[in-house]
């Protein structure tokens, strides 16, 4: 092997090592973050943490029951508003989306997907908080719904597009009208994929904080009224992390574990759903 050839092969080996090292650096960052979460938060997880409401600043103890329930309500309401619109838009794009309107909707969905979530917060503030005269969980839910619709629309479209054309033709040949073909045959075949997309979308908005800052606002007390300010885990973490008390920091880490656990759970459910779908297709 000539010196030149040797050099080239050594370079190749070194660069391979470098990209591998870079990859493991990224994985290491994840391990460090998750490790710190568990190291700093796990010891604060207790029965009280899940069942108690926050205590006044400076006192020890207390939990985040109000934030856990609040996250459920705000995210659930957002899903209730956002999922039908998102899935409907996705079906439209897949079934009728080859024209100009389809192009526009697709482009708008991509633009909105990249829009900063805090700007969506301003949107909800203008249309709900200002007219109503107060912050509310509903406004927060609308902001989160606006965030998830473009995402769900695009994933649903992709999933529906994967359904073979022959399946449609078969249903139409049997005399099914198109709307029933679309709903009973096409959408049902793509169901696992659509569910996965929805779960991923919900997981993403569950951790959102910025659009809730001036919509749901946060609430120190337990509240289930959607017309009043409501606490969520993400808002609670923000308040506690930036606050001055040691006790708050401790609770922030614990709340972060809960939030992270919720997001991961939704992610695992999404993976499980798509696997179910693949199994059925085979």
């Amino acid at each position, binding site marked *: 092997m000539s010196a030149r050839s040797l050099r080239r*092969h050594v370079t190749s080996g070194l660069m*391979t090592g470098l*990209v*591998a*090292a*870079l*990859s493991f650096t*990224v994985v290491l*960052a994840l391990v*460090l*973050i998750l490790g710190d*979460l568990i190291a700093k938060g796990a010891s604060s997880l207790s029965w009280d943490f899940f069942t108690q409401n926050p205590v006044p600043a400076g006192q020890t103890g207390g939990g985040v029951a109000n934030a856990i329930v609040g996250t459920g309500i705000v995210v659930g309401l957002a899903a209730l508003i956002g999922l039908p*619109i998102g899935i409907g*838009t996705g079906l*439209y*794009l897949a079934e*009728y*989306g080859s*024209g*100009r309107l*389809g192009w526009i*909707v697709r482009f*708008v969905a*991509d*633009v909105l997907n*990249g829009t*900063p*979530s*805090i*700007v969506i*917060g*301003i949107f909800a503030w*203008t249309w709900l908080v200002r007219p109503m005269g107060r912050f509310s969980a509903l406004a927060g839910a609308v902001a989160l719904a606006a965030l998830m*619709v*473009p995402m769900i629309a*695009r*994933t649903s479209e992709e999933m529906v597009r994967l359904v073979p054309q022959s399946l*449609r033709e078969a249903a*139409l040949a049997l005399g099914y*009208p*198109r*709307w029933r073909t*679309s709903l009973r045959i096409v959408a049902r075949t793509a169901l696992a994929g659509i569910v996965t997309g929805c779960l*991923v979308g919900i997981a*993403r908005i569950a*951790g*959102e*904080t*910025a659009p809730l*800052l001036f919509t749901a*606002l946060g609430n120190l007390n337990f509240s289930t009224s959607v017309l009043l300010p409501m606490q969520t885990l993400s808002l609670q973490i*923000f308040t506690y*992390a930036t606050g001055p008390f040691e006790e708050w920091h401790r609770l922030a*880490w614990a709340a*972060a574990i809960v*939030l*992270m656990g919720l*997001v*991961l759970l939704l*992610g695992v459910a999404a993976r499980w759903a798509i696997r179910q779908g693949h199994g059925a297709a085979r």
Partner: protein
Amino acid sequence: MTTLPIDPATTRDAVLPPAPDPASPWRALRGMNLGDRLYRMTLTALALVLPLLLLTLLAELVVGAWPAIKRFGLRFVWTSVWDPVAGVFGAAPMIFGTLASSLLALLLAVPLALGVAIYLTEFSPKWLRQPIAFLVELLAAIPSVVYGLWGIFVLIPFLRSYVVPPLRAALGWTPLFSGVFYGSSLLAGGIILAIMIVPYVAAVSREVLLAVPANQREAALGMGATRWEAVWTAVVPYGRAGLIGAMILGLGRALGETMAVTMVIGNRHDISVSVLQPAYTMAAAIANEFTEAVTDLHLAAMFEVGLVLFVITVIVNACARLLIWRVARGTAVGSRAL
């Protein structure tokens, strides 16, 4: 696929976009009965929500910002005084901080993300591919506020004790690393942002590299290139536009990121070239000041900050999409949420 023999006059529907694809039986069978029409109308109405949302969003930002636009004009983006009491607003430091932190993040994230993408598509053993891709994607699942928490209590102390002292010893004489380090800083913000955008840039880069035809690689190898040479001279240049698109997409994410940055960047309304100094971003300013705006002009200024942020991210994202489409045309690369 054959088209069913149906009179074209009855298959036309006034609402529909022109030029139907003659190959699709779906289109030929259009508009036959009430159920189909209702179905189509419902879906169209739902699909119209998004364009409507974008229009109202834009209109509302412009209307809300109008008093500030009228009062300050272009001075708003060029001047640095931000005094709510005196009613003078110049957003230059926020715009600078937004761009600086995002570019710093990009600088740190691109080598990492590109490394991941190249390693996963070209070099990694098969059994490692899925686990690594999964773990990198997991970074995108961590909520922003959790990154912020980690930034405050882990990253900043770590920077203070282990990174900044040697950095200043070596490069303290340059303006980039001058001044006292308090913790919250452009550097901390840039690093957090970098970790946050790596999964996005890596995922899109990977899809771009996977879309490069295998014969590019094979041709280079066949001419005697080493494996790295094949990647670097044949595969990467082929996907260059898409890779740049992936980076710009990452930039777009970084520009609009709010919580994590707000928590670690220091929120100081000032322009400083030193990465060790605190800074401010547009998103952070909205997060901090929006509910505290007391005067109408202050609120209008916040709307204008939102408008500027929105316009910048829309432009950046549009550029990214165009570049990615050029490589991976027809697929929804990058628009899929991770």
